[in-house]
């Protein structure tokens, strides 16, 4: 699967662009704040219907305009799809072969793995980053998870509204009717996270061995306060309901729900030791890359299509050795890269890369 070309109108600082892409590597370079990220954001938005930077629709439209249009030609399993979206006021509308479609149709059809410098801090940063990693990965591969996850957070909002209500002083029916639903979704979410962590672990181990010369072992352990042994997962609904009731005073005091999949974490280990505590910065980055590449590999295995990979500003965070390794591991599929420096392309075949310089929202294709 690859994007053959795009036409961009009024997307952020990109007034009007038409770009033909290479099937393999597309490398955008230029000074800061020229529009490099905006270009690959437009392309990934077209395929995944969302942005890696959390923004309102209005921020995606050029300041001086009221609407934006992005159109692309995508070749998937030998067949051409014409995909587009329009953004206006608060609305976004997606089209597939000129038919209006729900975002989920495109998400299901095209696979995208977006990689930015934040992802390199997967191990160093807080638990929310690791939850986001696993939740995004599962949602991509298994879209029903996204819906369950959204519903869970919606329930949580209702529950937190109850906790903030000063007239609700004890744990009663009103909590029960939301907690009962939360418990069902908690079981679903934790089961899925456990299952996919296991699959990531297997894939990540292989990839990691390819990156590191030393045979480091990667370990991924799910951490939750709800159960202490995973055999108890079948009873988790009951256990969680009891726990929510017991923990009510603390929740009420803090006016927020303190227990549940939204506070769980993943312990990442290297050679049976916490990578967060014991691994060097460089090691941590390498493990993060292995985990992110596992997302690409898992997608390919499970969906039988090679997802399109976006590397936004990741290269500059890596030393020469890791840069080469990363590129050599992306040995199939289309890859979009942004960087401030021109690439040292000695490893890449001339036919397999297109080079673009980005200057103030416009693009010039450069010779290799």
């Amino acid at each position, binding site marked *: 699967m690859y994007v053959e070309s795009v036409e961009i109108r009024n997307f952020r600082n990109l007034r009007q662009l038409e770009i033909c892409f290479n099937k393999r590597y597309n490398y955008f370079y230029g000074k800061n704040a020229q529009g490099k990220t905006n270009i690959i954001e437009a392309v990934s938005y077209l395929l995944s219907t969302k942005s890696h930077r959390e923004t309102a629709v209005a921020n995606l439209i050029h300041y001086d305009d009221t609407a934006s249009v992005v159109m692309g030609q995508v070749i998937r399993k030998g067949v051409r799809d014409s995909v587009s979206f329009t953004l206006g006021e608060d609305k976004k509308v997606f089209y597939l072969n000129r038919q209006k479609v729900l975002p989920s149709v495109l998400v299901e059809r095209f696979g995208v793995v977006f990689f930015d410098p934040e992802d390199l801090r997967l191990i160093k940063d807080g638990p929310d980053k690791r939850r986001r990693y696993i939740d995004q990965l599962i949602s991509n591969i298994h*879209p*029903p998870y996204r819906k*369950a996850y959204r519903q869970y957070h919606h329930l949580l909002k209702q529950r937190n509204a109850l906790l903030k209500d000063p007239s609700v002083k004890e744990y009663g029916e*009103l909590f029960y*009717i939301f907690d009962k639903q939360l418990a*069902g979704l908690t079981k679903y979410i934790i089961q899925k996270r456990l299952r996919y962590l296991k699959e990531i672990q297997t894939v990540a181990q292989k990839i990691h061995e390819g990156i590191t010369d030393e045979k480091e072992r990667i370990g991924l352990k799910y951490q939750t306060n709800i159960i202490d042994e995973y055999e108890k997962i079948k009873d988790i609904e009951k256990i969680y309901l009891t726990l929510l009731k017991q923990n009510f005073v603390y929740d009420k005091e803090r006016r927020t729900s303190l227990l549940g999949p939204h506070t769980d974490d993943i312990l990442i280990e290297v050679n049976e030791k916490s990578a967060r505590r014991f691994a060097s910065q460089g090691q941590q980055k390498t493990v993060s890359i292995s985990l992110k590449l596992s997302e690409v590999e898992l997608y390919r295995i499970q969906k039988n299509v090679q997802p399109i990979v976006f590397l936004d500003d990741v290269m500059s965070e890596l030393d020469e050795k890791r840069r080469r390794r990363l590129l050599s591991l992306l040995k199939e599929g289309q890859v979009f890269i942004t960087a401030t420096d021109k690439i040292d392309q000695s490893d890449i075949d001339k036919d397999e890369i297109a080079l673009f310089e980005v200057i103030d929202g416009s693009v010039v294709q450069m010779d290799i």
Partner: protein
Amino acid sequence: MYHYAQPLQTLIDEFSKMPGIGKKNAQRLAYYVLSLNDMEAVALAQAVIDVKEKIHLCPQCFNFTDDELCDICRADARDRNTLCVVSTPRDIASIERAREYKGSYHVLHGVISPMDGIGPDALKIKELLSRIAQQEISEVIIATNPNVEGEATALYLSRLIKPLGVKVTRLAKGVPVGGDLEFADEYTLISAIEGRQEM
């Protein structure tokens, strides 16, 4: 910026308050009203006044009606031992369209939603309970939407009503067409099907 004459602007503003009507559509509607002849315009205004003056809630089921009791509460042929609980009067219309159900209704006028400040007291729940106490109700079918608030409300009601010795069942609306289907397979459908049984 271009300014509309004040009365036109007022009409545009009123239309844009309506659900699903944006600025452009509001303008289109306002110009349409302007193009009407006097009789048509008065008929439209009168319809708005009438709907507010003549429509009130049926004191028994809380559906909208322009009569003392609504059509369904008045009809002889309806089964009065079965109550279908819905959240809005519009739900009655969609269930009636299917022509399957022959029992009576009860409209809650909303669902429990703490983040919108809507608790059980804001709904016609007390009225439902006194109906169950006074009339011979043998079965209550709860037909709130299969979303978070609809499920919460259904659960709340079933836990109130079941102890009264009344059979409570859950009628989930059909699964919406489109992207929701797959998730429905895994999660909603399971609860919808389970929910069809007694609660």
